[in-house]
């Protein structure tokens, strides 16, 4: 039962494992997931550890699996997701697995090399086909005189003039090929430069994307033909083509030969197609088979690797015959660990009882381990974000579980908004299983999903506070019927813009007869809906909410101080109960709890009749501090009158006690330390003299090192100032409960009046369309501003109130978390497969 409030008791254990049994024992412990191993070889490099070869073997296998996986993905074969998590295979099965992977890896690679060669051939032929088809077009054009004319024009100026006249004598050579389209322009420019304009380039784009034979990727390409003259130029053009990665294809001059070549290419392409198809089919079958079991292999490999990593942390130096492991484990689970160790040894066949668990005494602080479920996990995360609890310290989580959503709701109080939040959270909670693996890469979503139970509670509490504030989308609902009746006749109502509802049985100005307007019984739940119409609604709610804030705040802080008592008693710091807990609590009680009593006193003891003469609480608190008590005569404003007789004596007494607490807290602990040190110094002489006692004497101080007194003083001084000033500032800080609640209520009211009201006041068909548009605007603003933004702000403020105002009273948070070796967490932390 106490485990809810404190972290689990931990023990440092030593495991003595037979080398044969170690592997299966660790595997069992990994399935159990409640043991945190300590690294016993922190100074040894990763590559000098004992099982580095096994780890490397695993990595090699993982590489092969990654390769197979990428191949499977490129063929768009679905990988079968197995829900089962197989146990880590035995060491001898690893070799089988390795062999299987090796074979698959080789097979696929072989198929790929073959396929690549075939594809290369295929794409080359495809390019050739395009090349031939396009050049056919160019050559058909050459019969047209314009091309030659243009060629002549280009060359006429540079080469001997008879070219233009005797074009038929010229023997033009040409080179044709295929080039990536984006390089074409640079290619053309280069050709022109190198040949000084003595070439003609004809090109045309291939419409579809085609694969490049060298890189096997799909790109846009163009077919080109370069006409030139002379052998030397040909060499150069070929070099340029090579430099620009253009593929040159032969293209016969003769149209008949061209046709033959085209036919030839076509048949070869078809043959290749058949072969390629068969290769692909074979590959696909192989991959399909792989896809079925690849997930299981991956899980197995991850487990094997994790086991060897753990075994690398073991000590093997002292006794070569066995491994020694050190681990932290919760006390309550030791039996379970022993059982699984026995099971592990049995599996490995080395006989039961060969693995021994031995509990050790340790000076070291154990890690903090809270036994959590999916509901409490989120709240624990909120607490841990501030600091992980010191070992066995009171864990605020069970209290935060309720106070956090409650404080949030005080600020977020609106039943309508609360309902939406609740519905959203309920959806996440109910659909938990199917949503768990979805959108795991969406950071914002994972935050929401991780806090689904927090959001659920926040929503439910918001509905509650919304009902108390009587706010549903800034409107009140009249469930029980208001306790107020408007008792004026029409004449009075028509005469004035506003009328005042009198709670008193007194005649209202202007009327002679009294009509009872207040039923005498308050509205049963929360705020009377009549306030929605009142001009002084804000004044009224402000006053109420402010007082709530103070009451809630001081109660929570006192509770925090009381929790510190539990810590003191648990850790046997009995001196702290008297020197820290009491002065702190008494101070808080004398000033702030007294304020709460006054608030309740004022609420209960002042009727409507004497409402105007009720004393002001704020002024009273200030006067109490300043010890100024005005004389009770007619000149004194009524707001500073005393509440009750002998108030002065009581308040002065309280203040005196409160002030007494300050030196009490300030000097208490240092004085205690001084006395303790003195006693300790006095103690040794009482021991019998002798060599042995000297040794003890030598040893004692090393366990309790002499505390530097000045440090104690300074620390306690800071602590004192922090606490007393903190009480005041923290109380003021709780006023944020009121401020945010006010802001939220006002914002939603503004939204209603400025937006939705416009739509509601329109008539006719236009009004119908208008309300549709206006509602869209209103609802989206409600969701984004009021729910998301305001919700976030209320969340952060609630978080701050818990971290700073509440937890500072008792929570140290100096622990470190327990990270058990568990296969489950390893798999949860793995990146999602469909990344």
């Amino acid at each position, binding site marked *: 039962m106490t485990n809810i409030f404190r972290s689990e008791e931990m023990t440092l254990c030593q495991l003595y494992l037979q080398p044969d049994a170690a592997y299966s024992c660790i595997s069992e412990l990994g399935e159990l997931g409640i043991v945190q191993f300590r690294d016993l070889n922190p100074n040894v490099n990763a590559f000098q550890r004992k099982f580095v070869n096994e780890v490397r073997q695993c990595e090699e296998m993982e590489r092969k699996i990654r390769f197979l996986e990428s191949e499977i993905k490129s063929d768009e074969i679905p990988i079968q997701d197995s829900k089962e998590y197989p146990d880590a295979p035995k060491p001898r099965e690893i070799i089988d697995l390795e062999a299987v992977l090796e074979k698959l890896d080789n097979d696929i690679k072989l198929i790929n090399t073959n396929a690549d060669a075939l594809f290369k051939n295929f794409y080359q032929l495809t390019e050739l086909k395009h090349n031939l088809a396009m050049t056919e077009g160019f050559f058909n054009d050459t019969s047209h005189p314009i091309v030659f004319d243009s060629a002549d024009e280009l060359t006429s100026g540079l080469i001997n003039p008879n070219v233009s006249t005797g074009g038929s004598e010229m023997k033009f050579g040409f080179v044709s090929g295929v080039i990536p389209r984006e390089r074409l322009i640079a290619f053309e420019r280069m050709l022109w430069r190198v040949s000084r304009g003595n070439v003609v380039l004809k090109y045309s784009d291939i419409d579809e994307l085609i694969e490049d034979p060298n890189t096997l990727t799909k790109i846009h390409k163009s077919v080109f033909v370069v006409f030139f003259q002379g052998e030397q130029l040909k060499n150069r053009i070929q070099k340029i083509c090579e*430099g620009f990665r253009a593929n040159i294809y032969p293209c016969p001059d003769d149209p008949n030969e061209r046709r033959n070549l085209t036919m030839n290419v076509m048949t070869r392409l078809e043959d290749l197609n058949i072969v390629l198809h068969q290769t692909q089919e074979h590959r696909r079958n192989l991959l399909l088979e792989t896809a079925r079991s690849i997930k299981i292999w991956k899980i197995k490999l991850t487990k094997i690797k994790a086991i060897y990593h753990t075994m690398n942390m073991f000590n093997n130096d002292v006794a070569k015959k066995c491994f020694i492991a050190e681990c932290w484990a919760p006390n309550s689970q030791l039996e379970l660990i022993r059982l699984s160790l026995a099971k592990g040894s049995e599996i490995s066949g080395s006989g039961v009882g060969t693995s021994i668990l031995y509990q050790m005494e340790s000076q070291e602080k154990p890690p903090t381990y809270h036994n959590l479920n999916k509901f409490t996990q989120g709240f624990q995360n909120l607490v841990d974000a501030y600091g992980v609890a010191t070992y066995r310290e009171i864990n605020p989580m069970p209290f935060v579980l309720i106070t956090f959503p409650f404080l949030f709701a005080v600020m977020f109080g609106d039943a309508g908004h609360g309902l939406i939040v609740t519905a959203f959270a309920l959806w996440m909670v109910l659909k938990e299983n199917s949503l768990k693996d979805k959108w795991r890469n969406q950071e914002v979503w994972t935050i929401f999903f991780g806090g689904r139970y927090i959001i659920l509670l926040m929503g439910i509490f918001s509905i509650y506070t919304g009902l108390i504030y009587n706010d549903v989308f800034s409107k009140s609902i009249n469930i029980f019927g208001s306790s107020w009746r408007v008792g004026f006749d029409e004449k009075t109502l028509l005469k004035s813009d506003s009328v005042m509802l009198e709670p008193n049985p007194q005649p209202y100005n202007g009327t002679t007869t009294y009509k009872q307007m207040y039923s005498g019984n308050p509205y049963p739940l929360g705020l009377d809906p009549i306030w929605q119409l009142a001009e002084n609604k804000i004044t009224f709610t402000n006053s109420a909410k402010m007082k709530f804030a103070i009451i809630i705040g001081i109660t929570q802080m006192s509770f925090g101080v009381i929790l510190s008592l539990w810590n003191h008693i648990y850790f046997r710091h009995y001196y702290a109960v008297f020197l820290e807990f009491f002065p702190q609590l008494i101070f808080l009680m004398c000033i702030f709890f007294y304020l709460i009593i006054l608030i309740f006193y004022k609420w209960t003891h002042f009727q409507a009749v004497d409402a105007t003469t009720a004393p002001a609480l704020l002024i009273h608190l200030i006067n109490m501090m300043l010890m100024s008590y005005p004389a009770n005569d007619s000149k004194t404003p009524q707001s500073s009158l005393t509440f009750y007789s002998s108030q002065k004596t009581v308040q002065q007494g309280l203040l005196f006690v409160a002030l007494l607490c300050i030196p009490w807290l300030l000097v208490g602990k240092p004085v205690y330390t001084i006395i303790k040190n003195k006693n300790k110094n006095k103690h040794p002489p009482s021991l019998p003299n002798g060599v042995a006692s000297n040794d003890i004497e030598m040893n004692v101080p090393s366990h309790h090192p002499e505390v530097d007194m000045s440090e104690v003083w300074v620390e306690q001084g800071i602590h004192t100032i922090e606490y007393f000033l903190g009480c005041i500032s923290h109380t003021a800080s709780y006023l944020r409960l009121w401020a945010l609640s006010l802001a939220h209520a006002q914002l939603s009211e503004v939204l209603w009046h400025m937006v939705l009201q416009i739509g509601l006041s329109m008539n006719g068909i236009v009004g119908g369309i208008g309300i549709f548009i206006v509602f869209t605007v209103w609802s989206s603003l409600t969701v984004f501003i009021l729910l998301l933004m305001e919700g976030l702000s209320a969340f952060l403020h609630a978080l701050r109130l818990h971290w700073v105002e509440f937890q500072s009273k008792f929570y140290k948070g100096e622990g470190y978390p327990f990270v058990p070796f568990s296969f489950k967490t390893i798999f949860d932390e793995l990146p999602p497969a469909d990344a």
Partner: protein
Amino acid sequence: MKDDLLFNLDHGYAEGLCRGFKSGILKAADYHNLVQCETLEDLRLHLQSTDYGNFLANEASPLTVNVIDDRLREKTVQEFQHLRNVSYEPLSTFLDYITYAYMIDNIILLITGTLHQRAIGDLLPRCHPLGSFEQLGAITVADTPAQLYTAVLVDTPLAPYFIDCISEHDLDELNVEIIRSTLYKAYLEDFYNFCKKLGGITAEVMCEILAFEADRRAFMITINSFDTGLTQDERAKLYPTCGHLHPDGLQELRRTDNYDAVRDVASRYPQYKILFEGSGTNSGDKTIEDKFFEHEVKLNMNAFLRQFHFGIFYAYLKLKEQENRNIIWIAECIAQKHRARIDNYIPIF
């Protein structure tokens, strides 16, 4: 001051990225672990725990030094190109300037390659990807510097640097080296002026680094040109004039004809005096080249001490290159089982 205020507007993101990349540079402890590796597999295992992560994970065993080299370069280039892609003017021009140096190296590599009758297809993959440009593949067309200019370089940013080496001589070994030095000289001076024009901290940091680069080239040209038939005047033409040595030191370097004379010239400049004093020609001593590298690393590291300037991008790339050289050195030593000199890498942080 005004520049500082507005710097982050355009370049804050890139600077942040660059500083982030910088923190991934290997520390002394990492090197300490690397040199203990017995095999390349160990090296891979250790690099996994650094910022390099899984960059070698998909390589099949056995690992070779070449594969490591390729992956290292790929990673550096990727990072640099990412920076270039997110950069604004004038940072993008600045980053382009950095790539010009690689373009020069690529051109020279291809020309020397073709002089030795190597196929262009084998040479192209060996070019640095940062210095590749469209016309690079067609460089073999050119037989003389003039052709090289008119056919290939005229469209590239290197064109203005090439003006001085246009000639009709055939390309041969010595010629190519002269072209490289001339291009480099023009490039360095242009880059220097560009940085100076940018002003502010960029100018302060970059001019310091580039001045050193210029002086280093002057020293190396001098030392390497003994007994090559290069006349003193020809040699003097190749000295970049933006360094600390300009003008007096360069004049004296021109007249030197042996290593000791160069050392005498250097001894008049305190920063170079230390470098030459710390180096030796005996085996086991650090060569002057290593000393220069060390000094360069120091200058580049200093660039990171100041904010709101472009120098860190240059410094980052250079440091990363040095790191790659270190890793390759260590890898080579491991692969060839030549562990005696494995500690001769140049530590960065």
